[in-house]
């Protein structure tokens, strides 16, 4: 009895994996969105937060030169030194966001304790770039005052305390949720297509006429989705590790693999449910990818969920990927298993629920086809 069940599951798995491998276009398409996003993140990671500006230093006095040096060294801008005419040209050609001008009387004014301004001409077409400049210029001014030590008139200093042991680079931070996105798209798309395909090509009839039990058919379908998704996930994780994008260490490899497995199982179960419910390839393929993207963005996408409105943060707590993402962040970035029990339990429960939904949908679909 058990042997027949296992043989049937194994046969369905083998058949579905062969079908999956025969459709390299489908495989490529499931991994393409996440890999493309990873590539774009890698392209833009270097320049994030550093706005291009033209610096016009009209003052040759000591303070003017110090200010220019601070602006160059502050790691706040991508600076192009320019004459006023060159700066105007750069600004008009949209090569720089802003022109920073240190006026000719800068040193004199400071020495005479007279007010002086750094002129900031901004192309304020969007709040993101504009606010970056608005924050960066005062930062540079504060750094100039800090050079005066005890003489500085700015007596307010900041005592920073970080909640976490280290800052994570933006690219690394984005790479981890993209790995989750890859798993979700792959699991949902491949499992839903495999399930719906049986109805669309009417091979479900042969399956139902065979001596294989419906339990074995469903288990085989979910297992195939899980195996293909997990294989892709481990492959990309391995490449990410080699390239230094996501590097779990020691025992945390186990928790990372556990979470990836649970996310893969959740996606595969959900995919089978979707495929069995809709039973047609065309709507299934569109719905699967839209659902995967919604699940991804509802948990913050590649950004930081804590910056989102409270209603969105509340919704996120009902999305299982939120817990997967938290567990992966802890394991990969902070080498911690903080709340791993909660995260694994929620993910395991959700995976179980998704697989149960898949089983229900397949059973109902099969009953209708008999």
């Amino acid at each position, binding site marked *: 009895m058990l042997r027949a069940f296992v043989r049937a599951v194994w046969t369905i798995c083998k058949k579905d994996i062969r079908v999956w491998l025969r459709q390299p*276009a*489908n495989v490529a*398409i*499931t991994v*393409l*969105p996440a890999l493309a996003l990873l590539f*774009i993140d890698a*392209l*833009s990671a270097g320049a994030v*937060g550093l706005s*291009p500006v033209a610096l016009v230093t009209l003052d040759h006095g000591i303070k003017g030169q110090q*200010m220019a040096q601070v602006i160059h060294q502050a790691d*706040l801008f991508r600076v192009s030194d320019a004459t006023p005419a060159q700066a105007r040209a750069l600004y*008009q050609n*949209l090569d720089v966001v802003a022109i920073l001008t240190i006026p000719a009387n800068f040193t004199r004014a400071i020495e005479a*304790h*007279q*007010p002086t*301004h*750094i002129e*900031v*001409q901004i*192309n*304020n*077409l*969007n*709040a*993101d770039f504009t*606010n970056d400049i*608005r*924050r960066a*210029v*005062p*930062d540079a*001014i504060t750094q100039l005052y800090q050079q005066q030590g005890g003489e500085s*008139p*700015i*007596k*307010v*200093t*900041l005592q920073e*305390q*970080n*909640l*976490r042991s*280290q*800052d994570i680079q933006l690219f690394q*931070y984005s790479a981890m949720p993209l790995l989750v996105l890859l798993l979700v798209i792959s699991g949902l798309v491949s499992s839903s297509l495999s399930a719906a395909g049986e109805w669309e090509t009417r091979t479900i009839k042969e399956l139902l006429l065979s001596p294989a039990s419906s339990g074995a058919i469903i288990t085989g379908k979910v297992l195939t989705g899980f195996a293909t998704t997990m294989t892709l996930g481990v492959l990309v994780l391995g490449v990410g590790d080699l390239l230094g994008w996501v590097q779990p260490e020691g025992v945390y490899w186990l928790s990372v693999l556990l979470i990836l497995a649970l996310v893969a199982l959740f996606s595969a179960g959900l995919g089978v449910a979707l495929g069995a419910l809709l039973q047609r390839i*065309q*709507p299934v*393929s569109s719905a*699967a*990818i*839209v659902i995967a*993207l919604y699940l991804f963005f*509802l948990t913050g996408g590649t950004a*930081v969920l*804590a*910056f989102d*409105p409270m209603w969105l943060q509340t919704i996120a707590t009902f999305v299982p990927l939120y817990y997967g993402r938290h567990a992966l962040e802890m394991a990969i970035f902070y080498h911690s298993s903080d709340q791993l029990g909660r995260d694994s339990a929620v993910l395991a429960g959700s995976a179980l629920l998704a697989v149960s939904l898949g089983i229900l949908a397949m059973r109902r679909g099969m009953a209708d086809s008999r």
Partner: protein
Amino acid sequence: MHTYGSSLRVIRACLKKDLKSSFSEPLFTLVSIILPLNVLLLMSLLVISGGLAPTAVVMQDSGPLAQQFYAAMSQSHSFVLQQATTDQAAALIEQGRVVAVVTIPADFDARIRQQQPVSVGVKINNLNTDFTNDIRRALPLSITSFYAKAFPNMVTITPRERDAYPQDLGYIPYLAVPILVIGLMVGGMVQAGTAAAVEWEHETMKELLLSPASRLAILLGKMLAAFLIGLAGAVVVLAVLIALMGVWPIHWGELIGFTLLILALFTAWGTLLGTWLKRRTPLSTLAIGLCVPLFFLSGPFGPISFFAPIEQIFARLFPVYYAIVVLQHAFHDFTLNTYGIGINTLILAAYTLGGLILATVALRRSTLPH
């Protein structure tokens, strides 16, 4: 030899046939019509945070200078502030409800008045460098703004800003335009691509290829049908954007003209993709799955010249970039590149023509086995 009249007859016949086919599948047509709106909702989740850091401020001193410092923080375009007690603030940051806690010490006013150093505590949830650095830079901005107002004679260096536009545009109205472009892209490509691919899947392409009709006329008829259905989707998404989200266009004529051009462009490229892939599943998965990577690749956050050179090269390869440029001009009168609106329009027209020519070539070279 195809006469002008016979070509027109073929175009009309293909248009009628595809419209009838669409009406015979009302669910799929409805889904196609709301697809751009769906993309708008999905991608809005990406930008909803607005980039402001939710921050708790512990006011241990309620003196006038401490209040002025709080006011400077609230006007720094960087924080969403809430006042809290020490315990409340600790709980808020632990729960991830705020990303920073700023503590203004009890002796703030006294020390500032006596020109003694005073340390403001900053606890940051330093998740990733991009967001964390925004907070780190926003605090010096608050400090210099505070001194500039409270002690204009002491801190004499301040930034003086000159803006290119009379007012800043918020994060969401700015990014709504690139999201609209992506919605038009997905809607146009899925509708046109599906209409092309279904002919291959159902093998009705055989009849079309065997008929004396010109390939170009067949494609034009099919594209016209897809364009009309896509237009319904464009009207829905524009209505939501303008009426509900309040993103009002400055140049209505440009908006209508460019929307039609962009829709025609993606209809042509959808037809090409459908003719090339010959299957609906990879087509819709690809069109929907690549919408997020293409959004990020095409300079949605500002003029592409503000980004790294490699990003500029990639953005200019895709028509999405030029579509964003012309629609930002239509909506907000923004200039995002130096080509001028005429050249950008010509580039979009060339892409449209290129898509149509390539689709015709692909159809001419296509064969179907018996």
